[in-house]
């Protein structure tokens, strides 16, 4: 992929503006808070912030969303360390060492370790994205409709088989995404299909209401039902050990002594981020588990900085690579990548291999914001971690109405279509029930996003081959390889389920913790 100096200059101009930097910092400030509040994930935060970006130029919009994403991935560790409740699922592995250190009076050191290893891995993962995405995209440019179809099919099977611990439920979620993605006019015949007689479904289900519903409203429904039922009252938690300047800080040499765990976490995280369906939670737990097995002398899990370093670098190293499939193929690697993809589509820069030549300024701006975001994340995390620990205790009775209102307004202002709000609420309700019965929601949103690509490429391939199905599906070695990979990887994913390993890891750590 050729470097575009004009695109680079435009990106520099767009990124190094006061407004863009303001939104990047605002995103990180908000994101660390979202991450620190148990029950809110990076995807929830990005989904809720998405409507705020409708009127912004693309660089500012990306600044806000990337800041939020990075902040939330790191922010989860704050509540994991402070009160043993991971703010986000990916921070779950940080609890074991982090909270033990907190109880032993080393809370500040634990927070420092989480921050430095998060930022180190995040920078590395962004570099992986910057160097790999253009190469992979250049390769993907040679793909015809059949290869693109198989690529999407591969993503479908990976998403289904790797998301969650029950393969059938993951696959079901992916299939439901395809089902929802087909609602609306047929792209060739322009005849309404699956609209159930509702004229406003002819344009299909909008991406933004679906995302807000599934990622934000479903979680709030779940939490409000739980709160009303249990009438739970927030427990008083002592956070006095987290006051700035109290307790020993992490020394530079001490941090460097964890280089092996950080490197391991980085490697695992990059791998998990690149494969659609795995994501940060698996990255963190696998890195933690492997570090415990490979370095038994360090007693990881008993309250040591090495455990935090492995887990945090494992989850943050997924941030960059999760965008590789999005930028190179137009296929999001995770729920948050799907949200960022949605934002790009909304601003007219549809992710695809041609994005590097069509919108180089957007791609370069994205890269710059990813790198810049790490430095702001470092500064904000360093100075405000103890404050965020208190934000993590914010009552749900305040947060839930706030998120409901943001979701309703966000869906309403997206296109000014009143039915979008009803769709959003329906998707929220559906998402709530999916979560209740253990069906993961990530595959649904991602396959919903890629279904038009899958359908159009399949139809194009058949048109090119004049209706010959064999010729349409297997016209080249690449298509055959991708088809075989879809089958083989699915079998491998079922056999060596990383999610199962994570569950096992949690059980082992819980037993040891007791």
């Amino acid at each position, binding site marked *: 992929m050729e470097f575009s100096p004009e695109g680079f200059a435009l990106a520099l101009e767009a990124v190094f503006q006061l407004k863009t930097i303001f939104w990047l910092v605002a995103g990180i400030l908000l994101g660390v808070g979202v991450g620190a509040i148990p029950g809110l994930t990076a995807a929830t935060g990005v989904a809720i912030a998405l409507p*705020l970006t*409708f*009127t*912004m130029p693309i660089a500012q919009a990306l600044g806000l969303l990337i800041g939020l994403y990075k902040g939330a991935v790191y922010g989860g560790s704050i509540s994991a360390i402070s009160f043993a409740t991971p703010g986000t699922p990916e921070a779950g592995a940080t609890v074991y060492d982090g909270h033990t250190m907190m109880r032993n009076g080393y809370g500040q050191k634990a927070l420092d370790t989480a921050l430095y290893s998060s930022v180190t891995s995040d920078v590395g993962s962004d570099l992986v994205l910057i160097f790999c995405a253009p190469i992979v995209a250049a390769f993907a440019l040679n793909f015809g409709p059949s290869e693109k179809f198989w690529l999407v099919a591969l993503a479908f099977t990976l998403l*289904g088989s790797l998301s969650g611990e*029950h393969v*059938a*439920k993951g*696959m*079901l979620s992916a*299939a439901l995404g*395809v*089902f929802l*993605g*087909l609602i609306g006019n*047929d792209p*060739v*015949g322009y*005849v*309404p*299909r*699956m609209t159930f007689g509702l004229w406003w479904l002819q344009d299909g289900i909008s991406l933004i209401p679906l995302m807000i519903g599934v990622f934000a*409203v479903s979680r709030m*429904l779940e939490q*409000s*039902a739980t*709160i*009303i*039922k249990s009438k*739970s*009252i927030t427990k008083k938690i002592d956070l006095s050990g987290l006051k700035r300047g109290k307790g020993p800080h992490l020394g530079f040499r001490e941090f460097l002594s964890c280089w092996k765990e950080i490197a391991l976490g980085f490697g695992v995280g990059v791998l998990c981020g690149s494969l659609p369906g795995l994501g940060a939670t698996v990255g963190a737990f696998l890195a933690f588990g492997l570090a415990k097995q490979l370095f038994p002398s360090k007693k990881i899990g008993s309250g040591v900085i090495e455990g935090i370093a492995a887990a945090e670098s494992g989850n943050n190293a997924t941030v960059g690579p999760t965008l590789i499939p999005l930028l190179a193929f137009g296929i999001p690697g995770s729920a948050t990548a799907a949200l960022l993809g949605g934002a790009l589509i909304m601003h007219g820069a549809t992710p695809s291999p041609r994005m590097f030549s069509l919108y180089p300024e957007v791609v370069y701006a994205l890269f710059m914001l990813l790198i810049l975001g790490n430095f702001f994340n470092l500064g904000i995390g360093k100075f405000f971690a103890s404050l965020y620990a208190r934000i993590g205790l914010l*009552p*749900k*009775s*305040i947060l*839930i*109405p*706030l998120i*409901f*209102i*943001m979701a*309703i*307004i966000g869906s*309403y*202002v997206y296109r000014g279509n*009143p039915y979008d*709000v009803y769709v959003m*609420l329906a998707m929220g*309700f559906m998402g709530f*029930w999916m*979560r*209740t*019965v*253990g069906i993961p929601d990530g595959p649904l949103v991602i396959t919903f996003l890629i279904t038009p690509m899958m*359908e159009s490429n399949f*139809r194009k391939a*058949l*048109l090119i081959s004049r*209706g010959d199905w064999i010729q349409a599906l297997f016209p080249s070695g690449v298509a055959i390889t991708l088809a075989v990979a879809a089958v083989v990887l699915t079998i491998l994913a079922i056999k060596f389920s990383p999610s199962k390993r994570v*569950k096992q890891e949690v059980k082992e750590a819980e037993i040891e913790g007791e």
Partner: protein
Amino acid sequence: MDPVEPSPRAYTATALGDRFKYIIFYKWGFVMPKKYSWIRSNQGIGILLVVSFIGMFLYFEFADWAEHVARDGFSIGFFPKVATALVIFFSFVMTVDSKRKEVIENVAQLSFSTLIYSVAITAYCTLAYFLMVRLGYCIVVPIFTFSLTYVLGLKSIVRSLLVGFIISGLIYGLFTALGVNLPSGILPF
């Protein structure tokens, strides 16, 4: 594993299960803390989904639009039917795979009140939106936020009112600053 302390993650449905399965599950470390109805197992949920989506498939099969043929030779109903068949297939897999008798923790703890609360909150949000576009953001949203805040546990009316007004004001300010007009309804703003 101590049989007195059940694993919270793996509940096993009993209604369809036989005693041999019970022993195998027990040996594997899964114990039955409580008898749950079969409908709460993955198998029960899977069958509900299979039946619903077979209904959907039949609806597509007999729908007028499904028979139209597009320029590329595909009938309009082809892809919807393929997608529905995929959903039916994976729902069916849920009913026959090795985890078919498992009842996951959330479903085990599910009560009728959860259903009522989730429907009620969704309906309340729908009503709030319905009224908001007619009466205006500034009238409806503070009342909605106040009431929800109160119901969700901030038991002081004054504090809930205060929170309601602050949240509504903040969101109004944020969107207005971003150049987004919120529904004004009967008010001029």
